[in-house]
């Protein structure tokens, strides 16, 4: 008898719970809106990449808050900080009375949910390739009333893309370099097929040795790197050491083609390579130059 009561109570509880849940979070996607853009708009950007996009669209006064990681352009550093990239402070954000808050997905999902629950307008951009990036620039332009500037920016970027593309086409397939992109060293991490960086690498004319994996970011085995013998290694994190010297010390890595020919680089600014923003085309150019000087 007691057991039945237990099950009934549990079932009812779960049911009510589920119902309350489905009615609680409003479906939030891109706020498409026939509404007008306020006279003095206030925007907050929680992602360094999006901050760069906003500035590139000519916005400045309108940006009232950024994350502590937003460091480009220099003007961004003078803006009010609302917390770190993964831990934005919701209270700070709403006290700045933003009209739109620009976020990314993934790590910021809990914050995005929280902000939406408070009925704030949130735009989430999480491009996984160049096409999506250009689309999101277009969206952001539309939301902020800077369609013209957005088109200009997109055209400029596409121009650079075209230039690099032409150069890459001239390289015969056998001469294309195998590249290992090292995102972090301990544990060893790289990018897979679905990642943004992988696409940039391909557009630069390189072949990602980890392209057979589907995850965007993954732990990679050092032995696999040896086995796949890349021609070039790009480290995308800042370190003061001479990259070649430290990499040589890794067990068995002396035999890798990239190490033997001294083609280990860590001097591409990771911000322009890893951020899905306006400077990604710069990153593309630099990467191409490094691979095919």
């Amino acid at each position, binding site marked *: 008898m007691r057991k039945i009561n237990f099950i009934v109570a549990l079932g009812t509880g779960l049911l009510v719970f589920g119902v*309350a849940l489905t009615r*609680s979070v409003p479906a939030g996607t891109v706020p498409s809106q026939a509404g007008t853009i306020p006279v003095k708009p206030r925007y907050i950007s929680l992602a360094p990449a999006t901050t760069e996009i906003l500035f590139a669209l000519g916005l400045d006064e309108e940006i009232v808050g950024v994350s502590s990681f937003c460091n480009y352009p220099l003007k961004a550093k003078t803006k009010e900080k609302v917390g770190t990239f993964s831990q934005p402070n919701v209270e700070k954000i709403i006290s700045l009375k933003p009209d739109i808050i620009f976020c990314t997905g993934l790590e910021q999902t809990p914050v995005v949910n929280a902000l939406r629950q408070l009925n704030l307008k949130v735009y989430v951009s999480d491009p996984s390739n160049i096409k999506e990036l250009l689309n999101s620039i277009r969206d952001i332009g539309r939301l902020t009333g800077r369609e013209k500037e957005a088109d200009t920016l997109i055209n400029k970027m596409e121009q650079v893309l075209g230039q690099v593309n032409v150069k890459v086409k001239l390289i015969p397939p056998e001469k294309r370099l195998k590249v290992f992109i090292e995102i972090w060293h301990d544990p060893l991490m790289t990018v897979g097929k679905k990642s943004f960086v992988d696409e940039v690498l391909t557009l630069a004319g390189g072949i990602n040795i980890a392209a057979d994996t589907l995850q965007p970011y993954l732990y990679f085995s050092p032995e696999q790197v040896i086995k796949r013998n890349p021609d070039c290694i790009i480290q995308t994190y800042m370190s003061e050491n001479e990259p070649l010297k430290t990499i040589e010390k890794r067990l068995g890595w002396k035999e890798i083609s990239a190490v033997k020919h001294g083609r280990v680089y860590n001097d591409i600014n990771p911000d322009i390579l890893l951020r899905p923003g306006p400077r990604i085309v710069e990153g593309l150019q630099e990467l191409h130059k490094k691979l095919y000087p």
Partner: protein
Amino acid sequence: MKISLKISLLLIILIVAILLAITKGSVDIPLAELLLKENWQVLYLRILRILVAIIAGSGLAVSGIALQAILRNPLAEPYLLGTSSGAGLGAVIAIILGISSIYLPLAAFLGAILSIILVYQLAKQGSRIPVQSLILSGVIVSIALSGIMVFLISVSPNEALHGIMWWLWGSLQFYDPKLLLLVGMVVALGTFAIFIFSQDLNAISIGDEEAIHLGINTETIKKILFFITSLITAGIVSICGVIGFVGLIIPHLTRLIVGPNHKTLIPASCVCAAAFMVICDIFSRTLFTPLEIPIGIITAFLGAPVFIILLKIKQAVK
């Protein structure tokens, strides 16, 4: 000092704490200005947090009291029976499946409930639940589920899983008023139900057999309380993550203040826990503003010294 006086004092501390919590934060707005329409959003945010703090605190404390009595073990606390690992696993699975934006609390809740059912089934011997096997099963299930959770986190470098860190250390950032109301009702009803069983808890804390000699159906009561504390804990964990320390220390702290009689211990603990959580919330929001320190860290850092001081005072009095 009379007990009613002590409880009144605790209530005053709670009210002061609430007032402070409303005014302090990453933005300093004086109380009078807070009532202006333009600041209502911030006020609303802070009031929600205070409510979450009160609900989580009193729920965890009273669950801790009930478990300490049932298991006759002063180290018992609400997460002993696997709720935290089960909820964590549920949350991780939800994040991996990509449904975490809407379904995280539900997944965590289900995870908690399933782990409790697992613990119960493992511990059962016939129709009795011996105390030793409950504790043992709880520990085993906790470790096993935590292991699976860590495995999943390491195998799938989904960046959203970084978000799980805040959850594992507890967070009072919960802004869904409807769900909060639901959990609040569950916690309030559960706490009240446990209060009704004060007499039974008094008897059980003397001994299982002793309780039978006083006319208490211990096995039935244990099962009911087990169910209620599990529900309360699962509900709280699903919206706040894992806030440790409160369910273990507040019962002891309050016992030092008002004594072990559950009829007074339970109401006093609710007030004490609520005040404690609100104070911890203030610190978590103001210490390194705008950065917010996870509440579980504050409860540990604040709770331990306070408890030690009170213990020393009590010992000195003797």
